[in-house]
């Protein structure tokens, strides 16, 4: 259906006169058929056009308001209309989409997009489903998937104001990845919201491992981490140690190996450190790890860190990830620092293990993606000014080792430019604040310089995906699906006296 005619403009800013009663929408996808292919265009701005001068328009409105409400303009459709600014998204020829490098001729008709126009959007090798293609507010029956192996290892940013669908999108991504063999997800879940939905997945029992410190539902694991698993390095970006304190920690670790925290708490001998330094270390560790030590030097544990249990928790999590499982850790009851400490322990082990793999081995392993809610807590400018942490290391060099981040935030501007630039795929949901939009636009994989208004107008569940692994910045609709528990086949219970 023809919706307008090209009447001027320039590359990236094509002016179209809208056909009357064929309302164009911001973000709407249009097709301009040319002699050798199709130009895929997108509306990024709408404005009024008229054959009448401003003075005449004001006069007519005055007459309508003050004199005769029924006054009609002769040939109104020809004298007043809507103009739209369109940008070139791609040029499609023989089922291949390329960057557009030409302009359609004057008076080329632009028409509404149909599913067949985007048949070039084939399913990638390792598909990770994002949503359905959206044209303005209209949803097309065209699934949009990205190569998950590539996208996840090159990091993903999900940015949007609260209530715009970040959690729904993340749930969808996790749901889709649960039974995929190319990716494993580690979710540090500060709102404890994902497991409730994901446990309905048909493969949940085999593929999802859920850790919680609170009464775990059947099958979930009580989060316990043995203090022997901690090393001084895990505290990078978690505690702001002074140089002397750092040195004392390393001295303890060197001398007492795995039992170094017990040694600190029991005030076991260590030379060349000031008493005050050691006292601060002890107090900080006790507070952070919720440990206590009595006069008899017995250590008691009241949090997730334990002296008996949890000896294999971190390796268990990393092993589960290497087996393509989704690991969700309920961090809702932790102080921010504890959550980061746990994340840091797991991320360090994942990264260390992956660094030992040859390129060939790496190809056989799934990409491990770490989901970071409120990402500026670990990737924020102020945090990284105090020194790098394992997450900034992953952002910088994780893709070489098949380890990626999914950073979720409503404030992308708090993340340094160089980190944002390393995040290749950005899923942008509605953002009201201009500086936040700017931060995303400036670091996007495709040119979004004209999309500010579109981003500001994104409704709940609407998003734009920009990525090197997509042929153009793709508008999508995030699906909100209600999942029901799948009833499993009856099981027999051999060996029991029933």
């Amino acid at each position, binding site marked *: 259906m023809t919706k307008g005619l090209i009447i001027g403009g320039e590359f990236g800013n094509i002016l179209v006169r809208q056909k009357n009663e064929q309302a164009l929408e911001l973000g709407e996808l249009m097709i301009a058929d040319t002699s050798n292919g199709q130009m895929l265009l997108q509306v990024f701005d709408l404005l009024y056009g008229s054959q009448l001068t401003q003075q005449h328009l004001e006069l007519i409105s005055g007459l309508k308001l003050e004199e005769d409400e029924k006054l009609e303009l002769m040939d109104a459709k020809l004298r007043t209309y809507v103009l739209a600014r369109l940008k070139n998204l791609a040029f499609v020829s023989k089922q291949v989409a390329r960057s557009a490098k030409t302009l359609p001729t004057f008076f080329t008709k632009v028409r509404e997009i149909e599913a067949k126009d985007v048949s070039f959007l084939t399913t990638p090798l390792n598909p990770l489903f994002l949503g359905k293609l959206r044209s303005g507010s209209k949803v097309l029956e065209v699934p949009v998937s990205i190569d998950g192996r590539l996208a996840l290892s090159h990091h993903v940013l999900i940015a949007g104001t609260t209530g715009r669908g970040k959690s729904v999108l993340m749930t969808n991504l996790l749901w889709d990845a649960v039974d995929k063999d190319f990716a494993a997800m580690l979710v540090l879940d500060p709102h404890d919201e994902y497991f409730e939905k994901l446990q309905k997945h048909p493969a949940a*029992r085999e593929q999802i491992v859920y850790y919680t410190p609170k*009464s*775990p*539902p*059947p*099958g*979930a*694991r*009580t989060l*316990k981490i043995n203090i*022997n698993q901690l090393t001084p390095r895990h505290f990078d970006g978690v505690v702001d140690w002074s140089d002397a304190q750092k040195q004392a920690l390393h001295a303890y670790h060197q001398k007492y190996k795995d039992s170094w925290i017990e040694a600190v708490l029991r005030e076991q001998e260590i030379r060349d450190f000031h008493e005050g330094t050691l006292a601060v270390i002890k107090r900080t560790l006790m507070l952070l790890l919720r440990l206590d030590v009595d006069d008899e030097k017995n250590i008691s544990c009241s949090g997730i860190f334990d002296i*008996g*249990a*949890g*000896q*294999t*928790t971190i*390796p*268990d999590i990393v*092993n589960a990830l290497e087996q393509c499982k989704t690991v969700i850790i309920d961090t809702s009851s932790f102080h921010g620092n504890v959550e980061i400490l746990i994340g840091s322990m797991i991320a360090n082990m994942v990264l260390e293990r992956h660094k030992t793999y*040859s390129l*060939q*081995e790496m*190809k*056989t392993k799934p990409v491990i993606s770490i989901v970071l809610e409120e990402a500026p807590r670990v990737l924020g400018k102020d945090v990284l000014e105090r020194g790098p942490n394992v997450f900034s290391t992953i952002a910088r060099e994780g893709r070489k080792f098949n380890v990626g981040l999914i950073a979720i935030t409503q404030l992308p501007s708090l993340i340094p430019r160089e980190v944002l630039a390393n995040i290749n795929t950005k899923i942008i949901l509605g953002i009201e604040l201009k500086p936040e939009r700017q931060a995303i636009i400036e670091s996007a994989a495709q040119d979004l310089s004209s999309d500010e208004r579109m981003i500001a107008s994104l409704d709940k569940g609407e998003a734009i995906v920009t990525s090197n692994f997509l042929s153009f910045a793709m508008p999508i609709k995030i699906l909100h699906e209600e999942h029901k528990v799948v009833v499993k086949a*009856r*099981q027999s*219970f*051999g*060996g*029991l*006296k*029933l």
Partner: protein
Amino acid sequence: MKFAHLSDCHIGGWREPKLRDANTKSFILAIDTCLKEKVDFILISGDLFNTAVPGIESLRMAVEQLKKVKDSGIPVYYIAGSHDFSPSGKTMLDVLEHAGLAVNVARGEETFDNKIKLHFTVDKKTGAKITGMIGKKGGLETNYYYQLAKEHLEKEPGFKIFLFHSALAELKPKDLEEMDAMAVSLMPAGFDYYAGGHVHVVDRQNIGAYKNIVYPGPIFPNNFSEVEKLKHGSFVIVEDGNIQHVALPVHPTVCISVDGDGKTATEVEALVKQQLLKNNLDNAIVAIRVSGCLKQGRPADVRWNDLFHDAYAKKAYFVMKNTNAFTSKELQVIMVKEANVEEVEESLLKQHAGQFKLSPNDVELAKKLMHSLSAEKAEGERVADFDSRLHSELDKLLEG
């Protein structure tokens, strides 16, 4: 209330008769201790036998001991473990139960919605309510736990004991990282005692609402590493909430560990000998572990017969060695990490290139030769034609 908790007896488990005997002695010692301590009842958390159908000797001994216990008026409550479980339920354990020597507490009913509703077995003397879940190989019992109706078990008042034969993820020891394990949360909460088995460790932990999760350790170490780590078997006696691990030292254990890295076979032999001389081996189980890479000679050059002879001369009960990680440079194989045949070939060719020189790129030439030589006779092709084709291809390659 006083009860004993045994697990992983693995009767009939060792192949070496002397160790099998030691295992038996350990089991008898445990039973005798229970009788001496006058426990009210005995729990066995799986793997009483090493197989579902044990040998006559093992069975005879077990029956004899259980009869002794029964005659003393002490009931035995058990579950099947991963070794003595049978899907059909037809095991020697079943025979023991029918003979009135022990009670299988992993019993109940299947509900209309395909759930397992376990029943409690109530100990007459103490009123303790006992139930449990079998263990299966590879942690397959986990599926049963997912189908377990827990509400009635958790609501039941009184002193409750749950027998299980599974590794628990939260309590797995570091050296058993690879072991299949299930979450503690699959068990019913709020019991007074969780009598564990399967994991051969001595441990007692509380995890949230799960208090007193106890692994008593095996009755006797089950392999070389366990001999080194545990030294002897053990079980648990619980008296009015006081949990006490009881050691079963039927033989002293002497563990000798020698690092052979960078040494000669003679030096290693001397080091082992020195350790044997130093220790009191009287009636002891001696475990000798040698690791590392010899700088000269082969591991087989160590005169083990002489060393064993020395140990037995000092009245050792049994001598065993572990040389799995003992190697020499001569024996070190070429490690190839590549994933497919082509890459393995390429890697091997690269390692051996340079032994002769035929062309500017011998690796490439060798690959082409291998490719040509692996060609098969085409359908309809005469043998003579195939022969000639092959010759011509090889000539071309070698000339080029």
